[in-house]
């Protein structure tokens, strides 16, 4: 199962026709004729981890590249840039989303949560982060931000009731170091603590 990507696909902006028209691009009669890559930069504001970030971006910039290259929020990782690995997973309005398949422009007005936004202001780790740490649910750590955000989404969706469910609903997040059994253990550890919190 790939984490649900909802309607935030790249196709929304790069595809032709109706989908494009619905988006907050600079309007005007020429828009249909201008190839998307030549459209002028747009200004937008992204709400990330509770903070507003004004940005000027080309319309084709993905949310992943906006986070990493324009906002220095490097916690979201690029492992494929094509929706295959889950390393770029973030939460949008609480749902897990692949930020490499999401155009930054389509995330305007939504609440984006990245790995940098999980710990408390005092540095206290989110129960899922704490559980990943204690269960050694990673090795190189590269897939880890995506795994943790996906795991939070998995618990919230109600897909963490049984280990079989966790394994199935976490299978959109690849871990080449293969920390999988420890990831399952971490989610089982964090779930009751998340529910209490």
């Amino acid at each position, binding site marked *: 199962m790939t984490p649900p990507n909802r309607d935030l696909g790249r196709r929304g902006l790069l595809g032709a026709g109706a989908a494009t028209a619905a988006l907050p691009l600079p309007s005007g009669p020429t828009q249909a004729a201008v190839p998307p890559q030549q459209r002028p930069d747009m200004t937008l504001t992204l709400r990330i981890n509770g903070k507003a970030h004004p940005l000027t971006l080309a319309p084709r910039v993905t949310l992943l590249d906006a986070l990493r290259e324009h906002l220095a929020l490097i916690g*979201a990782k690029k492992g494929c840039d094509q929706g295959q*690995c889950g390393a770029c997973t973030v939460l949008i309005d609480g749902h897990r989303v692949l930020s490499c398949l999401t155009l930054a422009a389509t995330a305007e007005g939504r609440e984006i949560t990245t790995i940098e936004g999980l710990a408390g202001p005092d540095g206290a780790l989110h129960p899922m982060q704490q559980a990943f740490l204690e269960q050694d649910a990673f*090795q*190189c*750590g590269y897939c880890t931000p995506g795994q943790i955000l996906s795991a939070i989404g998995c618990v919230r969706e109600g897909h963490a009731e049984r280990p079989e469910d966790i394994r199935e609903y976490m299978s959109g997040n690849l871990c080449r170091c293969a920390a999988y*059994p420890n990831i399952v253990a971490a989610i089982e550890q964090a779930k009751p603590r998340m529910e209490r919190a």
Partner: protein
Amino acid sequence: MPDGSMSGRIGQSPVRVDGRAKVTGAAHYASDMAVPNPAWAWLVTSAIARGRIAAIDEAAARAVPGVLDILTHRSMRGEVGDAGFFAGGGYAGSTIRPLQDDRVRHDGEIVAIVLAEGLEQAREAAYRLRIDYAEETPAAGFGSEGAELVSAREASGGSFEDPGVGDADAAFAGAAIRVAADYATPTQHHNPIELFTTTAQWEDGRLTVFEGSQYVHGLKNGLAAQLGLDPAMVRVESPYIGGAFGSRGSLTQRTALIAVAARRLNRPVKLVATRDQGFTIASYRAETRQHVKLGADTDGRLVALVHEGTEVTSRPDPYKVAGTQTTSRIYACPNIRTRVSLLHADRNTPGFMRSPPELPYMFALESAMDELAHAAGLDPIELRRRNDTMREPIKGLPWTSRSLMPCFDRGAAAFGWAERNPAPRSMREGDWLVGWGCATTIYPTHLGAATARVTLTPDGRARVQTAAHEIGTGTYTVVAQAAAEGLGLPLGKVLVEMGDSDLPPAPVSGGSNVTASVCTVVMQACEQIRARLAAAATEGPLQGRDPATLRLLDGALRAPDGAAEPLAAAMARAANGAIEVYAENIPEGLPPDSLKKLYQGKQALGGGLEGKQHVMAAFGAEFVEVRVHSRTAELRVPRILGAFAAGRIVNPRTARSQLMGGLIWGIGSALHEATEIDRRTARYVNDNIAEYLIPVNADVPQVEVLFVEEEERTANPLGIKGLGELGNVGTNAAIANAVFHATGKRVRELPIRIESVL
């Protein structure tokens, strides 16, 4: 940077000191490192495997707004020199040098680099660059016309000898029980989740490269050689690496090209190669074909072992893994013949991938052992017991320690092996055929020269500096544990700095050598500090005690009689402020020039099976249950168990993760992973991680790792054997053997898929 405040000496299981950085997104991997105003590079790679570039039309690409330059063989001016093949004493994983001429030598060779203000512009322009090729018919590998077969011995110029003893063919002919079979293993790619990235930045003629590396000193020196620079002018930073598995061990071609691009633009350049490009701009596990013959007496004792293997490589590079070095030494057998050959084809050069020699060759040997057990009517564990030996058979050298049978016994008990009905197709649950299989696993214990600097400050904090690498193996943590042990400090008081070529050199993070090599030298540095403090303790509470008996423990210098002096006071006697020491170590048995080679960034490991006095390896036994659906042939591995003996375990928590990851790698290798190649065009077909199948969470229900205690006295003072590559070696055969037990069908070609058992 690593943090943590828990106690954690050698043998304890603290959580990783870099764990907090990894779970908060604070760990910086190469492409996360900020550089001012970078330009973006996008690679264009060849659409053919063999031929020439006939024409390049740059007009449309250059018309893309934001494009800064396009590098092709026409615009490169010999700026990248030859760094030599690593196996021949150089640095490069491949001697193919892209952009040096109009030749195309393999699919996906770098043929142009587009440079632009932004990554979107670079990508767009790369897609608009038009390249016309004059194509020639390529040889993809086995069965292809034009591929050249040479013996490994010949290819090595005589430096490689196929191991052998006695007269294996005559002994086989006369053996009471005989098996002979052909085996095949596929091309496989590492596919670490971190992409291959490079960021290059020049400041006052000094080059800094941010790149995930398993050997920052090798990369630094190799780049210096390629670019004609003094190595002191090159720095490689690689504090965190998002998985490597061998793919980041040798210098690859892109790095110098990106450095040249940055020099030309006079601005930092950042490259994040795409996933599919990663299949052709780095290395991979070579495809093999193997033949094994085993002859035994009626008791199942081996009398003959023949193992022949052929490995695919590129046209120019004699890369080989030659796992016969291992398979010829595991079991007692008086007559052994081996032979390794290379098949040169129009492919990129293969390279190290987790357990390079052992994985393919042990698949064949351990499958054949299972075939022999079946032919002899013996339990497969009993067959291994009858052929167990404390001396390797080629030269008769002793193993420094070997716990193969204790591993089998522990593993068998935990797995419930005694319940197994040996007859194939005899175990069933509903529609599922159940099979249990096992196999031996082994990984040689390698060691390298290493250096480290350790600084102790009077407030009881230590800093360890060594250019080792954190590729997921837990190196920050085990190095911190060694210093905590050596200096008697809590783990949280130790800061470890690694992954930077400006630090004292440590060996390549390959061959599972680092924990042993680096912990050893760090302990030596700590011993220097202890000795200085002890020598100065001539007055005060420790007056009159023999300095040799004083120990650093729990923040104090302590005598055996209980007298103690707090660290700050002991330090005040010995030094005016901090104590900084540097240590370097050449493990026993390595040549005296090993340190020089280390400083030059050469790859020079010793130990393992090449020793003159003894041989050393970690062993284990792996057990799997497979289920094969009787109607659909769907294949599952509901549980897998490994029992391992690897000397002293520095951190059981991280060691367990390594072995667990290894077992799952083994499942992937046995059931999922193969890079498919179009035999007509010699191009990779499934060059992405949706179609190149790696295990996902749902593929691995139950994995169990057991440690079998083992005392290793010879390999190194700490008694450590590396285990990062131990887990995945036996798994392929264990699964194939379980498939045979489930179905009665012997599958000798990996990966085992539905069509293999239909």
